[in-house]
């Protein structure tokens, strides 16, 4: 059963972050506890010692000492700076995922969690992760704001519609843990809970192979063809749009002179809002796919671009006719010369 049932006092400590957060908590409890107890003790002591006695006159004046005032102004300040720095270190650590994290794609919607593994497994309200490997969960929402919260891992991140956030953790104890939505999201907010299953690496591999449905990248390739992305983003000479090989994680120069890292958010934005950031040297001829493509399909595309190596881009769509049933896409004719631009996407270094 759930690990947390073992103790009603303290949640299970099942990730590397959890240990950091708990140590910080112990420190805070010690410092704040002693200050609190000191104040309580002094108040209690003064109240007893200086209680009003019958017949007592008015007490003498105590002159406030500026040195004392400054002492208890400056001292807390120094303690606070210390706490702040420690807290910031833990936060920064929890903010930046290690480079070798396993990417998992998560979607929150009223009122369920959906996850996709790079190997293609899909899960609802359950998330299987291996022990001792950093895992990064990329998160987005299909409707309102949710929040991804695993108490045992001490990780927490709001899940926003139309935007990516991410959270990472490295599990340290096998077992089953709660996954909660902690941002109020409607009627069944309390029912938007799931289970995180931490497995030994070998068991996890086993589980992966048992539930394999073809990798997410392969899925993404299908999406790439289904929406006829390939008719422009093709490997043919004179293609009408940049080749996307080796794009993921690299710097893209934009036509307004700025640069941007081609991360998950950039790819998503370029699909839904193609005019927002245009690669240098290209005209924006791409229609928006907002309302046509689902969040899951975007995730698949991202996984596909992550895996796309040089020379793997499919050729133009004529060679690969789209599957039947694809919704017609509002393609526009390119304005002016289409291929006058130089390839702006940096090739593999």
């Amino acid at each position: 059963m759930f690990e947390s049932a073992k103790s009603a006092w303290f949640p299970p400590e099942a990730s590397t972050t959890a240990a950091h957060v708990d140590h910080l908590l112990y420190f805070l409890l010690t410092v704040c506890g002693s200050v609190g107890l000191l104040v309580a003790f002094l108040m209690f002591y003064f109240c007893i010692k200086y209680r009003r006695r019958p017949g007592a006159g008015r007490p003498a004046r105590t002159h406030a000492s500026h040195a004392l005032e400054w002492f208890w102004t400056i001292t807390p300040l120094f303690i606070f700076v210390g706490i702040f720095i420690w807290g910031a270190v833990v936060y920064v650590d929890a903010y930046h995922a290690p480079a070798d994290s396993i990417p998992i794609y998560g979607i929150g919607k009223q009122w369920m969690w959906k996850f996709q593994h790079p190997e293609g497994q899909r899960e609802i309200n359950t998330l299987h992760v291996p022990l001792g490997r950093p895992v990064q969960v990329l998160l987005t929402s299909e409707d309102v704001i949710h929040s991804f919260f695993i108490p045992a891992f001490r990780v927490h991140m709001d899940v926003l519609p139309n935007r990516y956030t991410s959270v990472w953790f490295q599990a340290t104890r096998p077992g089953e843990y709660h996954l909660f939505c902690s941002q109020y999201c409607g009627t069944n907010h309390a029912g938007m809970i799931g289970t995180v299953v931490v497995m030994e690496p070998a068991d996890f591999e086993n589980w992966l192979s048992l539930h394999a449905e073809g990798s997410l990248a392969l899925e993404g390739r299908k999406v790439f063809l289904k929406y006829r992305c390939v008719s422009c983003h093709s490997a043919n000479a004179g293609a009408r749009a940049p080749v996307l090989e080796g794009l993921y994680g690299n710097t893209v120069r934009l036509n307004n002179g700025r640069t941007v890292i081609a991360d998950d958010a950039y790819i998503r934005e370029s699909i839904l809002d193609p005019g927002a950031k245009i690669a240098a040297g290209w005209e924006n001829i791409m229609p928006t796919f907002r309302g046509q493509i689902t969040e899951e399909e975007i995730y698949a595309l991202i996984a596909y671009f992550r895996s796309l190596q040089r020379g793997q881009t499919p050729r133009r769509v004529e060679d690969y006719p789209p599957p039947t049933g694809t919704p017609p896409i509002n393609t526009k004719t390119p304005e002016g010369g289409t291929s006058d631009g130089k390839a702006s996407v940096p090739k593999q270094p």
Partner: protein
Amino acid sequence: MSLKDTLFTEAEQKALFDHTFLARERLEEQYASLPHQSETAAFGMWVFLATEVMFFGTLFLSVGAYWCLAPEVIERASLELNWIIGGINTLVLLVSSLMMVLAIHSAQINRQSDVYRYLLLTAGLGVCFLCFKALEYYIDYRENLIPGFKFDEAEWVSRGVDASQIGYVKIFLFLYWTMTGFHALHVTIGIVAVLVMAVLTRRGHFSAEYYSPLDVTGLYWHFVDVVWIFLFPALYLLGTHRL
């Protein structure tokens, strides 16, 4: 000729007015003297205007935020606003502020009939502003610039706005309507206040010693003017207009 006029000379009337009527009727019990009361009222209006700054500031902040997010689209949308009428209205309000200043100046030198005339001019220019504004709103309506009510996405695509970015156009226009709408509401309140002051002036409510409500109304009117002076460039002049 009233009984009052037959009994007292003008100077005596003024003394009576100042010392009995003013002291009894104008001065509220919590104040030591009329100047004390007037200064407090003016201070109160300044504090109130500080809250108004925050009120409009939120809207300016929103415009700024979306301008940073999508500068080209917002500037393109701004081009469609009628900057000529906006410019005329800026002049109208500036002149009305001048009239307000003249009204208060006349009050200070106790020329009550001038006060009345200038107040009417102020209010008249305010009404003039609202008429131009109404005309502009009508033109906006004709040009499909009302998101959620009368709006044509295809037009904006033909103006070179990417289909996926039309949302920003709508937000900008929405903020335009909200900001100019709230400003127009303030102008309307201001006109009513100025007209009330005009009536009070006509009834001989004010004198060189006591014109505090006029002063406070003037502050409010100038503020409404200043808001427009910031609002005009922030909404109308984001893009480069060509004649």
